[in-house]
């Protein structure tokens, strides 16, 4: 369904645009139809940027994105617009994604109106159908976002996203601002909808347990690179990259302190563009080669790829 090849996005900053932040630095992966790929990493590792790039909400510096056989980056604006309904994004903060001055019903109807293929009464029917699909009550249609709770607003966002029958959805930390019990409701809803509507998902989160529940495969990102990718069961239990290890058991033996000290220096690579492994300054198993040569992604088992010198 989705194929990403050597995708890069560099942001330049500073007065003379001389500083370069490699938010996404040469990543490749695929998502099969009907699959959920989980993307985990800490804040600032570039996972949201990846989500936005996939939908071409921002332009990549280089690389290739193939969506259902179509090369997204070759498309002109108009062609892209035609493709947009098929790919949608759910953002972190539901309150911020909804227009505070628009009634819930109007918010959901808006994408349908923009599409311009439905009449007024059809739109109305579709809206009530969507409201029901995401588990809201019909009377919510005339409310404003501030009158609803965070969980309900996230349901509204979901209804809006589903309005155009997308195939592919990028969910960027859809529950990070919600309480655990509400989070469970929303995550279950997403799972159900995915099954019913045969959706393909990229599920971005920093919460490992959530990603574990939601995804068939997981990609672990660290400072602009994917360091490990594999089936959920491989990542939890047979993880090979030292960074994945620290994420899964942040207090695990031995790694803790060394990692923590290194973690404070971790920015350096991104700004200076040093050679070598991105995780080298924080890695407890760092060898000499790690500072010099960047590790390649290697398939150690079927479908389980790791970028680390120590493993290969």
């Amino acid at each position, binding site marked *: 369904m989705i194929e990403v090849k050597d995708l890069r996005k560099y942001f330049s900053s500073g007065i003379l645009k001389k500083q370069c932040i490699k938010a996404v630095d040469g990543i490749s992966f695929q998502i099969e139809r009907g699959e959920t790929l989980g993307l985990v990493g*800490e*804040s600032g590792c570039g996972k949201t940027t990846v989500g936005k790039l996939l939908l071409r909400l921002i332009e990549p510096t280089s690389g290739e994105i193939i969506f259902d056989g179509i090369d997204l980056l070759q498309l002109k604006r108009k062609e892209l617009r035609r493709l947009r309904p098929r790919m949608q994004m759910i953002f972190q903060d539901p309150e911020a994604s909804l227009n505070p001055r628009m009634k819930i019903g109007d918010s959901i109807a808006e994408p349908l109106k923009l599409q311009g293929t439905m009449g007024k009464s059809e739109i109305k029917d579709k809206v009530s159908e969507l409201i029901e699909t995401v588990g809201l009550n019909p009377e919510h249609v005339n409310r404003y976002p501030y009158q609803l709770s965070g969980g309900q607003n996230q349901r509204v966002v979901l209804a809006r996203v589903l309005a155009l029958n997308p195939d592919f959805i990028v969910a960027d930390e859809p529950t990070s601002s919600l309480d*655990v019990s509400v989070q469970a409701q929303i995550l279950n809803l997403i799972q159900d909808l995915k099954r019913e509507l045969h959706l393909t998902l990229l599920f971005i989160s920093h919460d490992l347990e959530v990603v574990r529940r939601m995804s068939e495969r997981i990609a672990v990102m660290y400072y602009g690179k994917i360091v490990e990718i594999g089936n959920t069961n491989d990542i939890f239990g047979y993880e090979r990259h030292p960074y994945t290890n620290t994420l899964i058991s*942040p207090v695990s033996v031995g790694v*803790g302190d060394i990692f923590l000290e290194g973690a404070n220096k971790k920015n350096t690579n991104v700004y200076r563009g040093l050679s070598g492994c991105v995780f080298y300054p924080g890695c407890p198993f760092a060898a000499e080669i790690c500072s010099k040569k960047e590790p390649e992604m290697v398939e150690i088992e079927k479908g389980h790829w790791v970028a680390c010198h120590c493993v290969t």
Partner: protein
Amino acid sequence: MTLLEITSLKTWFPTRDGIVKAVNAVDLKIEDKEKLGLIGETGSGKSILGMSIIRLFHSSVKINIEGKIVYKGKDLLRLSKEEIRKIRGKEIAMILQNPTTSLNPVLKVGDQIAEAIRLHQRLDKRTAKEKAVEMLKAVKIPSPDKMANKYPHEFSGGMKERAMIAMGLACDPSLIIADEPTKGLDVTIKMQVVKLLREVTKQRSMLFITHDLGVAAEICDNIAVMYAGELVEYAKTEDIFKNPLHPYTQGFLNSLPERGLKPIRGMSPSLINLPDGCRFHPRCDYATGICKTRHPEMVEIENGHFVRCLLYD
């Protein structure tokens, strides 16, 4: 020795829409050097309970506090504004959630900490600043003398949280009220902050307010579970996790992703319009007729394990 004892504390806010009953008849004790976790969802009143202890409310807020909060033999609710000010920060410090909004963006971090120190200790500016640098060092901020002269926006999320902890510790309080100090932090950073909190509270008591059960398990000796403004369960941390008794606590634990992601049906009630009888009955799978009318009391089921539920009556 009991450091703080709260008895039938009520914190109500009269508003145009009705009375917001944020804290309802809460009894709670914190022993010397005890780490007590207070867990609950958004809107359960846990932050308000923490703030009530040191009356950390803006003077324009209409508020109704009743009950007793006895700290080292003094009832904090009977103290005048001036007197409570002397306790706030010095004896009992609060570490607020969201360091980004709690720190003053236009003041250097070191100066903010020095300001807190100078409020309670007669030190000149220079010595206070030196002490601030010392505090930053104590919370393991790298090159503290340099960082003291930086502004909050130059700090990362984890570092800001550390700076908040440094500020809380600055006057060497006996009790720390930490309100969701790990909210919004990444796993690895979160664990650093947890470790730091454990270290700096070795010789102190702490009321740790959170909805993150994993973190509470790491830090707390005992845990109190709050729902709709009242405590529904209180036990040793281990017992809460291994043998939760209240249906709400069970539901809360089961909604964690690692425990199966089974949500509690319905929504938390509004604090203005609390259900009759047991506050949890509209969402409870075990609710019977009597739950709708009778409000359960806290009952000790096992040694030190209290629960507010008619199932155990």
